[in-house]
């Protein structure tokens, strides 16, 4: 290394050097997000494997009836919205949820931008909007889960082999072993994938609140920079990104 002969060059081992021109914290957040990508991919890849190894529904979409014998059509499963009981509104609610999360991502990046200008009031304002968006999303998800677990009015008649006898009974809603909408694996993946994502949103909201609190108490202003907003922002955008993939692979296709 020629660096040893030059007195003005910073020693690379004593800090102050930023590899890839990103600060330590930001780089570590990127590496964490890559590992989290693998975790979410594992869930989505497993979903793809099980879906392709299960029988698909053949026939007209309009004639679709839920049965454990074949994989359901998502738009026939997720067709309810709050306060409009019995209305067939396919994917509308999940569309609203997607919009809320994308919008909270926008307010987050606006908070980061305000942090660059050292505009404390604007950072506080946008962090509050982001927290509100995240909390609203969690509320929507709680409703969606409740609806999925409780089930529809009529349920689905299922024929099962129990202790050597064929037993016919009606299944309402879904849990980890029974599912009125399709094969039990479909409900399992719904709970695991949206649940894992929801956990990320929850921890994101908590982190966002922490950032808001520390902005409001002036910690970042005293520190001289709002880099923590950027780091937590990266995490929050990642949560939004994962939802974009969940939305496509679980609800659309």
């Amino acid at each position, binding site marked *: 290394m020629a660096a040893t002969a030059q007195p003005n060059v910073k020693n690379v081992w004593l800090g102050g050097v930023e590899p*890839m*021109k*990103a*600060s330590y914290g930001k*780089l570590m957040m*990127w590496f964490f997000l*890559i590992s989290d*990508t*693998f975790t979410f*991919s594992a869930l*989505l*890849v*497993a979903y*793809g*494997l*099980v*879906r*392709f*190894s*299960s*029988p698909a529904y053949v026939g007209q*979409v309009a004639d679709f009836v839920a049965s454990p014998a074949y994989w359901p*059509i998502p*738009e026939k499963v997720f067709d309810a919205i709050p306060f409009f009981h019995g209305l067939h509104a*396919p*994917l509308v609610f999940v*569309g609203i949820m*997607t*919009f809320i999360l*994308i*919008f909270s*991502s*926008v307010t*987050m*990046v*606006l908070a980061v*931008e*305000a942090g*660059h*200008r*050292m*505009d404390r009031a604007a950072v506080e304002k946008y962090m509050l909007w982001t927290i509100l968006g995240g909390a609203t999303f969690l509320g929507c998800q709680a409703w969606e889960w409740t609806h999925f677990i409780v089930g529809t009015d009529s349920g689905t008649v299922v024929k099962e082999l129990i202790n050597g006898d064929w037993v016919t009974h009606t299944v309402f809603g879904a849990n980890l072993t029974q599912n009125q909408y399709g094969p039990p694996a479909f409900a399992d993946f719904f709970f695991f994938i949206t649940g894992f994502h929801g956990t990320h949103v929850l921890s994101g909201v908590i982190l966002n609140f922490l950032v808001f609190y520390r902005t409001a108490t002036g910690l970042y202003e005293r520190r001289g*920079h709002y*880099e923590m907003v950027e780091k937590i*922002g*990266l995490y929050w*955008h*990642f949560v*939004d*990104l994962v939802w*974009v*993939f969940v939305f*496509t*692979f679980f609800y*659309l*296709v």
Partner: protein
Amino acid sequence: MAHVHEHEHDENAGAEQRKAIWRTFWILLAITALEFLIAFTLDAGVLKTAIFVGMTIVKAFYIVGEFMHLKHEVKSLIWSILIPCIFVVWLLIALMREGGSIFDLR
């Protein structure tokens, strides 16, 4: 972040950046709206799935590139993030094919 240390409270500071943020938002919203339109007008099939996957990648590009600022980072950082993701795509395709073959063998 040497370029951002402009401590004067100038109203115009970052105006360009804010414009880019809102532009990205409208693009993401338009793609999501288009996805809904396609979901209810096009028959299920390979084409529909391909369109959805394509649009998802475009959305991911805007979120990661603009919101997460990766587009404006140095090349080595961009590639250290993108290259590992190639393995994910490979695993997804491999295991979906595997799933199809499990279905055939059952």
